[in-house]
């Protein structure tokens, strides 16, 4: 059951991720990205991270991606036109990315043997309570710091995008 769920959502996530990258229209990419995020939320649930799963949907799918969609719609961005410059990028990028993936996969497979497996319910420490408790004790400082970060984001967005009424 777990394996099936994992495979379904992992494959869905990968398919969506590839779609994000290959679609020429930004809105199609955006929808695919929402798909990735949703399936990741399910995977988080499998890993016992229920709070993170909810946060994933609320913050990522519900807020960040809405902003993206909003901007795409606002700019009425059309499909991307091909430009010739990316040849160099391809020549350098493809091998290095493949190498990165290869190295990562190799290490992961070697360092995490099959015995260390997950099953649903194997970890129940990811409740809102546990996360919240850690957030306000151990991670108090980063938590407070993120509030500054949000303030900066608000101020920044206003500074950049505010239109004077004159």
């Amino acid at each position, binding site marked *: 059951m777990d394996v099936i769920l994992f495979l379904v959502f992992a494959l869905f996530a990968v398919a969506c991720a590839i779609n994000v990258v290959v679609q020429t229209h930004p809105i199609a990419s955006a929808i695919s990205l929402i798909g990735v995020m949703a399936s990741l939320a399910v995977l988080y649930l499998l890993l016992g991270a229920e709070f993170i799963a909810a946060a994933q949907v609320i913050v990522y799918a519900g807020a960040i991606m809405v902003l993206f969609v909003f901007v795409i719609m606002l700019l009425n961005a059309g499909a991307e036109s091909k430009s010739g410059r990316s040849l160099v990028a391809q020549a350098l990028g493809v091998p290095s990315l493949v190498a990165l993936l290869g190295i990562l996969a190799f290490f992961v497979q070697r360092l995490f043997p099959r015995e260390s497996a997950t099953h649903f319910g194997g970890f129940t420490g990811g409740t809102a309570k546990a996360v919240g408790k850690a957030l306000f004790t151990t991670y108090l400082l980063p938590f407070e710091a993120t509030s500054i*970060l949000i303030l*900066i984001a608000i101020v920044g967005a206003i500074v950049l995008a505010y239109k004077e009424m004159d």
Partner: protein
Amino acid sequence: MPADLMPSSGDLIRILPEMVLTVMGTLLMVLDPLLHKRSSNAFGHLSLVALAAALGATVYAYANEGAAFGGMIVVDGFATFFRALVIVVGILTVLSSCRFLRRQDAETSAYHALLLFSIAGQSMMAASGNLIVVFIALEISSISSYVLTGYLRDDPRSNEAALKYFLLGSFATAFFLYGVALIYGSTGTIDLLAVRAAATGQAGPIAAPLFLGLAAALLFVGLGFKVSAAPFQIWAPDVYQGAPTPVTAFLSTGPKAAAFAVFLRIFMTAFEPGGGGWEPLVWFSALASMTIGNFAALRQSNVKRMLAYSSIAHAGYVLVALTARSAVGASAVMFYLAAYAFMNIGAFAVVGHLSGKGERYQDIEDFGGLGQKQPLTAALFTVFLLSLIGVPLTGGFFGKFYIFKAALESHLVWLTVLGLLNSAVAAYYYLRVLVMMYFREPSQAVNEIEPLAPGLRTALFISAAATLFLGIFPNWVLDFAGQSSTLVK
């Protein structure tokens, strides 16, 4: 209220500088309606007060050395050095921004607030002992820098610069984070000291050295972007050229210094015992940064862009000292960054002074005859340029000297020789500016130039004095750096 929710007073004292800066930043925006119609420069003055207070707080925090928030913040000499450095950078930036902003009709509380926030982020970076704090502080610094870069939103150059800075910066962030994830995965912790313990095999579940090496490489990619080290330097020229000049001055010093502080902190703390095999990477990057930066700078006609490339090269010099992987190298980095901060801010401040409304005059030709028209400005600029070249009795010289000394101590003979040859190449493009200033007739830009504003003059004087001071009595700074460069006691 449960006791474990409340940070102790010691904890609070140790993050006092950041608290002062953020509170004052917020206060600035709250007071905006009150101050806006009053005397000009009110924001600038308040920022200066905030920064001075933060400097005081830094010293006070240093008097209460130690770890705070369970090791998330480490206040030691190293942290204090960089905190003080970024705050001083902030003071100089504020001093040189006031006139600039008024000339562009763009003085708002938000600018100063963002600057203060950014400095708070950098100061926190310097003091962080935990990767998540590093990350968040880095983002605080970065995101406010993105906004500051795009601050002149009616200027397409500023927009573009912000866009490029933002995209590549976020990309780098992702790499940095992945590195953090791998560290967390291989050691089960993100506390730097604990990572160190795990890496030395004292603890930790799967601390495979190669895996850690991979993590180090990813972190290096992330930080490499932030310090504009090759091959991750591509954003720097456009960003530095496009950003408002005082912001450029800030970007090329404050965030860079903080990023190097983090770099040192992470690599000298967490990865040092195992080695991690990251030196060849840094070696290559150092050489590439110096070479690319210097040779690209040779061809620039825009002074801001030229200084941008030169700042890539300077990042390369610092990386040379990092490659040395020693306490001496660390103190050399610290000294160099201090010297670099002063000379670079000074240089950019002069560029900003000359560029005029709308930043029209940035070309090297525009500097023609500055020596006749404003000998004082030109003389100060000369000090900065000579220091950037690395002429003795300036801070830049001692910076380079210590760096290459450290490199030679670690037997990096070839890197040293190539680095020094690079610095000779660099002399050429700095000299071009000197040539323009002194050996040519006044250009239109120079004819239109306005007198030095008091704030700017103060900034230039401070920078020049500091540059010379570091060049004649480097010990004051170096001794402190030497004492605090041993990160793990």
